[in-house]
């Protein structure tokens, strides 16, 4: 069986399981109630987006070092998928925040960093679009991808000093971290499902990039 088909089936399966866990298995949160269930999608999307941007960073380095098209295609695909998931984060966040915090947005470290990341990776995609020469565009994007990722922790720290309201990280906190075991299990299942979805999309986008490059090559030679 081809890899993409296996990936696709695994994604469907894990998504179905995740939906069951999120809506049936996980208990309703005591103070926030049912609205809290958006948390499982919100955090899973955020994790996926960060994973995608980390992949962009690694593949950018690999591309500059090795100059192989493969690394460029992967970083392009990861950036596009990452922007998609970061868009989910920025939509589900305010939806959740409005009833709970009574405001759509607060300028705290994690929210602001997410917004900045979203902007940065849209610019990353624009650089590719607006550069005439494909190789040059790939190089520029790689340079930008490295600089952009390295400043993420600095942005986070500096805004954190500036102001912070977002709840402290719920996982890896002291003893249980205030979250019930069933919720943690649900979160992990959801994160797994979203990671599968991400890999699936990444793979599909990679194949598109490959076909695009082939088409480009054929056109160049046909003239």
């Amino acid at each position, binding site marked *: 069986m081809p890899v993409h088909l296996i990936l696709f089936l695994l994604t469907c399966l894990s998504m179905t399981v995740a939906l069951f866990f999120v809506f049936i298995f996980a208990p309703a949160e005591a103070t926030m109630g049912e609205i809290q269930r958006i948390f499982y999608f919100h955090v899973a999307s955020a994790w996926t987006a960060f994973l995608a941007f980390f992949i962009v960073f690694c593949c950018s380095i690999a591309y500059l070092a090795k100059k192989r098209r493969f690394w460029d295609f992967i970083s392009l695909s990861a950036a596009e998928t990452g922007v998609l998931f970061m868009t989910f984060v920025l939509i589900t966040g305010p939806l959740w925040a409005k009833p709970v915090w009574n405001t759509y947005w607060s300028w705290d470290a994690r929210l602001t960093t997410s917004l900045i990341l979203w902007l940065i990776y849209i610019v990353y995609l624009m650089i590719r679009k607006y550069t005439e020469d494909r190789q040059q565009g790939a190089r520029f994007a790689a*340079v930008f991808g490295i*600089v952009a990722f390295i400043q993420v922790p600095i942005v986070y720290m500096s805004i954190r000093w*500036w102001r912070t309201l977002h709840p402290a990280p719920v996982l890896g906190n002291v003893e249980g971290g205030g979250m019930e075991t069933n919720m943690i299990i649900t979160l992990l299942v959801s994160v797994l499902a979203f990671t599968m979805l991400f890999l699936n999309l990444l793979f599909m986008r990679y194949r598109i990039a490959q076909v695009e490059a082939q088409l480009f090559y054929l056109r160049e030679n046909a003239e």
Partner: protein
Amino acid sequence: MADIRHIIHLVSKDLLIELRSKEILLSMIIFSLTIILIFNFTYDIGIQAVQRHTPGLLWVAFIFAGTLGLNRSFMREYENGRMEGLLLCPVSRGSIYIAKLVGNVIFMMIIEMVSLPVMVVLLNLDIIKFIPMLFLLLVLGNIGFASVGTLFSAISLHTRSRELMLPIMLFPVTIPVILAAVKSTAFLLNAKPLAEIMPWVRILIGFDLIFTTLCSFLYKYVVED
């Protein structure tokens, strides 16, 4: 040692060209003053509000004007194929980048030195006793902003929309610099103790060191063919 000599030569070349044409510096100064003028109308700045808004206002003016200068810094080299000449010189890519960075920082310092006194008069600021520290903050902020800016201006030059690309690439990435510069300036102008200013100064120094090193290394990938 040879690198330092190269850098000095390249910087003095840029400064000489600029001193003769004055086209970048003059437009940067007028631009930063225009921004102050616009702020004055949009915020309706009264004397009481000045203390709260000045640091942000100053840095917005300096950064927008600085972006103008950054946009021009490499563009000039592409007239008459001067960039090819520059790249053919037996000078390392890192030196070319550092020279451009030094030039851009000097340009930003010059516009700040000229427009700051004007702002003091227009906004009724009292900065005399803060001048040494303010100067330090300006230098650190400018280096941080120009370090990434110089690298990105070399990129944006080759994109289809040129001048448009630089600010949208640069502003999100330099947010820590802008934040730290504005915060430390605000603490300084409100006569807060040094202990409160220092964390932000440390962010500025850290950013400057990391990104000057990183960008001088990455520059060679931008110009290679």
